[in-house]
């Protein structure tokens, strides 16, 4: 089944994008492989948070430099992503440690019942790592959209000043924001109907404080926060880097 779907995806990408389509397909499977390798390595006992940060850096390299090429646009995106990653790691770590959302709830007892729970590995770290990997895709997407449209603006009006360039980045960011929020909302919420069916007779106060509900809502909110935070940072860094390049070219 997976092979058939992958082949269809590859075929469609090839028709619409030619060589670029092949690249997309290759990076897509490289990323899948990256996530699987991550799970294998942490199951061998490595630190899940540090490894997740390495995965995020590699993922940004794959999406930015392999898919979009190495240039000033992708370089400024890369720097911005690293800055946002620092903020998000601090936020995720604090919330993850405090809110007791590690592991599984009694809902999944059927699924995990066959396993031993004594695995000698702190599940809090696993869930923090999961959140970091979850948000990296949307940070990359928003960042590259902002920086490439800023580059476009600069190329069309070379006389624009640095402040206006920053403003145009923020403007584009605002436009992308609503669709990004929609994309994330549906992608994360799509597996959530089952939860509500299971708890259809529980009072609302139990649902709001439930482990699975909190896990999903925190995941959603963290990705929203990350995709907003990246906009001003990318606008600022890109306006600095792209503008400097333009000055150098003029001289």
């Amino acid at each position, binding site marked *: *089944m*997976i092979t*058939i*779907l*992958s082949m269809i995806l590859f075929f*469609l*990408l090839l028709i619409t994008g030619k060589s*670029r389509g092949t690249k*997309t397909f290759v990076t*897509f499977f490289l*990323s899948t492989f990256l*996530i699987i390798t991550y*799970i294998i390595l942490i*199951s061998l006992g490595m630190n899940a948070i540090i490894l997740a940060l390495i995965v995020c850096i590699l*993922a940004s390299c794959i999406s930015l430099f392999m898919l*979009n090429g190495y240039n000033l646009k992708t370089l400024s995106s890369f720097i911005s992503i690293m800055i946002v990653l620092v903020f998000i790691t601090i936020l995720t770590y604090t919330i993850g440690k405090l*809110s007791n959302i590690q*592991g*599984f709830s009694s*809902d*999944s007892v059927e*699924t*995990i019942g066959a*396993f031993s*729970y*004594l*695995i*000698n590995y*702190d*599940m809090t770290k696993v869930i923090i790592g999961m959140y970091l*990997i*979850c*948000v*990296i*895709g949307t940070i990359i*997407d928003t960042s*590259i959209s902002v920086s490439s449209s800023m580059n476009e603006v600069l190329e069309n009006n070379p006389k624009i000043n640095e402040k206006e360039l920053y403003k145009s980045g923020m403007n584009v960011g*605002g436009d992308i*924001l609503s*669709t990004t*929020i*929609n*994309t994330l*909302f549906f*992608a994360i919420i*799509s*597996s959530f109907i*089952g*939860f*509500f*069916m*299971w708890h259809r007779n529980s009072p609302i*106060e*139990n649902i*709001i404080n439930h*482990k699975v509900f*909190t896990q999903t809502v*925190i995941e959603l909110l963290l990705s929203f*926060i990350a995709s*907003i935070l990246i906009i001003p940072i990318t606008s600022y860094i890109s306006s600095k880097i792209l503008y400097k390049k333009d000055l150098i070219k003029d001289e």
Partner: protein
Amino acid sequence: MKLRIKLILLFALSITSIIFVYNDYFLYSTPIVKITNIEEEKHDNIKEEYYNQIITGIIQNGKYKDNVIEIKNKTSKSGVYDEQIHKNTEIFVELSNNGTIANSIIGIKRDKYIVILLVIFIDLILTVSNKKGIKSLLSLLVNIIISIISIIIFKNNYKSINILILYLLVAVLFIILSLYITNGKSKKTLSAIISSIISLLISFSLSFLIIKLFGKDISFWTMEYIEVIYDYENFFYVSILLCGLGAIMDISITISSALNELIEKNPKIKVPILIKSGKEICKDIVGTMNHVMLYTCYSSIIPIVFLALRNGMIIANAISFYGNLELITILTACISIVLAIPISLYISIYILKGGRK
């Protein structure tokens, strides 16, 4: 000046709501206990350490408010299935014997963390993009309300309603309302709405057909909450339908606003040029959009596959047991993203250019 007042107001509102959620015990009917002291007894198992805790805490609400109470809890280092309770954690308990004995811990009070993140999110979106931020928030709110209503309709009639048909209708409603709210009434919005609906229908029927034809080897038993879902096959189709929905809307609004921009700047622009520049724009989005889907959805398999591997399951088995359904959902979402491009391109050109001939 006006902006400053708005910011101060926003800040005050944020602080108030956080203080409120830290003291909202009166809203709950279940007794809440705030932990003041923990005595731990460490045990060494062959595999890992676990602790027997005797917890002391004060009841915060209800009839037995301010009573001091003792509870026993067992916790382990890894915390796969137990609750790790620390000082100041607030827990829900079941009381008996006039509020002097706590039978069991029902759960942990987690609402404050959701509210803190929600406040950060709203503050950020309003400071980064003021007007557009409000629109995005509004469309998000509408989507949440529609989701809740649809879930209520389904849970009350789950034996008679076909979940797939219900959610196909809901998906159309999602598309119309969220595109309308964020982009206003215009030809651009109309073309985005029509192309989203058509892309959704075409790509969904394709995925549906492929899975019906070749998907006999799909095992649904690892699906979460399968015990309460009678119609699990249709339920799986619903998650496929919803997963790519946002992405399809993203593609179609991007294409229709870009083409609208081009046509407005040069009303005499030829159709082949429009097609070419539309394709150029999409080349940039498709790759990263596929990555968004992959990282956002595939990351959710990490805990369960991790647990399986820690228990000595073979990697290939663990991934195909717990990751296959997720990967199928992601791949179909990616297919709909790629399909949405030509569909939105031609529909947008037809609608935007058609009226000007």
